[in-house]
């Protein structure tokens, strides 16, 4: 990221801006300064990671027709000099499975064994078929059972990896209900899920069903299969209820956690604090910080970022700034997220010049602004009727191909129209559409609405 031009820093000068040397927007624009680095650690079974590499190759199978596929396979076998290993076989089967039906894939699988005796399928080969069966369009477990039985007859009993793959595939094709059904079956059959699979499913359930359903599921697993929720499960649950703005339930969950004898860690506290901040409850957020300290949990960068974000959001930017000092004292380096939150807070208070000052401070400290910072400042400048400076900044953003966010786009268009610069507003509209900052519909709706407003304002003699 390059530097914001000097003309934007001093509040007096209006000279034109210098081009920054290199500006590559590499951060996704997001106003929420919580990046939780660790939640549930994703476990990718080896055969899945192999699959993900695949789309870089062209799919050798161009038609879903079985006899065509057999021909393709035969020609690959005869033309390739090196002996094909298991991974190639799996990859081929996977490629075909991505375009065909389950029964055709099984037929090809049988054909592969028959015509190419060196191919000895192992568990991962069956898992390819399994994951295809989970994506079958019919809303039952029949195809999944078919593959599981097929595995069993060939001497491979399902294990926890099998369960994991089936559950993830079912969830990714929006069949969470089936996944729950399957995981119960598997728990009875010596293929009990591990905590990763379990937590993954809990997370999917949280997204798709009511909280009570999730609790029932957890209760059932505890009593029937002895699988207890762990700290990650609780983090998922707390995150879920706070996203639904139910802080009381979150507090209750923390108490449950204490009863279970699990000590809340930094992530749990961060999640609760995030909940407080999205609800604009500054005092409660500070309360969480106090509690952390009491329980001897060291706040991390995310904690401070969340707190500063929250305090800025509810208009307590002076306190937020105090915590900037605190976090530095504790040995954390404030990042672009920290500063952007603070700038956001200052802009909300109408202190755009203070925000620009902060920009200078941040760059002095060697912290580069990101797209989000630029958007925050653009929004603030336009709101504070500093249109010329806003346009300078917009010029820089355009130069570097940065995207506008919805809010800054709308404020810029409005500010231009208010000044009677409709043609310039159209130009911003063009840029927003061209850079895919917002959808065409959103860009147009904003423009149309603003022009409608302008017409009314003119009728009342309020605008030029």
């Amino acid at each position, binding site marked *: 990221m390059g530097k914001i031009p000097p003309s934007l820093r001093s509040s007096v000068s209006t000279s034109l801006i210098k081009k920054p040397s290199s500006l590559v927007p590499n951060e996704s624009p997001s106003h929420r300064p919580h990046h939780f680095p660790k939640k549930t650690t994703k476990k990718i079974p080896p055969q899945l990671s192999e699959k993900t590499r695949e789309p870089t190759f062209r799919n050798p199978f161009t038609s879903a027709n079985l006899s065509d596929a057999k021909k393709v396979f035969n020609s690959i076998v005869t033309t390739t000099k090196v002996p094909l290993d298991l991974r190639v076989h799996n990859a081929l089967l996977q490629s075909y499975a991505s375009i065909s039906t389950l029964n055709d894939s099984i037929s090809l699988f049988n054909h592969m064994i028959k015509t190419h005796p060196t191919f000895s399928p192992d568990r991962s080969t069956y898992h390819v078929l399994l994951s295809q069966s989970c994506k079958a369009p019919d809303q039952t477990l029949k195809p999944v059972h078919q593959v599981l039985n097929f595995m069993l007859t060939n001497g491979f009993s399902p294990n926890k990896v099998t369960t994991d793959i089936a559950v993830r595939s079912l969830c990714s094709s929006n069949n969470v209900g089936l996944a729950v059904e399957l995981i119960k079956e598997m728990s009875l059959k010596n293929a009990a899920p591990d905590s990763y699979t379990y937590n993954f499913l809990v997370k999917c359930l949280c997204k798709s069903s009511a909280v009570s359903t999730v609790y029932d599921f957890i209760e059932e697993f505890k009593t029937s299969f002895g699988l207890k929720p762990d700290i990650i499960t609780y983090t998922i649950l707390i995150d879920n209820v706070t996203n639904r703005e139910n802080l009381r339930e979150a507090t209750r969950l923390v108490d449950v956690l204490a009863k279970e004898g699990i000590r809340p860690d930094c992530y749990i506290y961060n999640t609760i604090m995030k909940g407080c901040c999205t609800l604009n409850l500054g005092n409660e957020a500070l309360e969480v910080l106090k509690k952390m300290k009491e329980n001897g949990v060291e706040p991390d960068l995310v904690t401070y970022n969340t707190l500063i974000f929250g305090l800025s959001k509810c208009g307590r930017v002076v306190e937020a700034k105090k915590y900037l000092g605190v976090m530095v004292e504790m040995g954390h380096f404030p990042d672009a997220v920290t500063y952007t939150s603070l700038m956001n807070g200052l802009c909300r208070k109408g202190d755009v010049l203070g925000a620009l000052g902060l920009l200078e401070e941040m760059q002095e400290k060697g912290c580069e602004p990101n797209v989000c910072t630029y958007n925050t400042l653009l929004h603030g400048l336009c709101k504070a009727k500093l249109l010329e400076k806003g346009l300078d900044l917009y010029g820089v953003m355009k130069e570097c191909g940065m995207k506008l966010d919805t809010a800054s786009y709308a404020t810029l268009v409005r500010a231009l129209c208010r000044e009677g610069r409709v043609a310039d507003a159209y130009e911003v509209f063009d840029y927003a559409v061209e850079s895919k900052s917002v959808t065409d519909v959103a860009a*147009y709706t904003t423009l149309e609405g603003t022009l409608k407003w302008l017409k009314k304002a003119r009728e009342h003699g309020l605008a030029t």
Partner: protein
Amino acid sequence: MLPPRLKKAITDNPKKLANLIDLVNLPSTLREFVGQSQISHLGCFMRVWSYIKDNNLQDPNNKNVVKCDEKLKGILLGKPQVELCELPALIKLHFPKEQK
């Protein structure tokens, strides 16, 4: 991913979005201008706006004003010149609310 506010606007008012992007059978005046028999409200606006840009129809002294050529006059109520800020409203006239 749609921004939450837009998403809300769409779920609150799916009709409004549909009005913008659904293809509409065009009256003959407009058909001649766009060169096809169907276009969406949004697509039509884009077409007219890029026509203005491509043919440099903006008044060089006041960019906010468009000097219509014959072709453009035909679809914009025959006005010799229109203000840019009226453009969406003028185009909307071709897309009346009650379609069916």
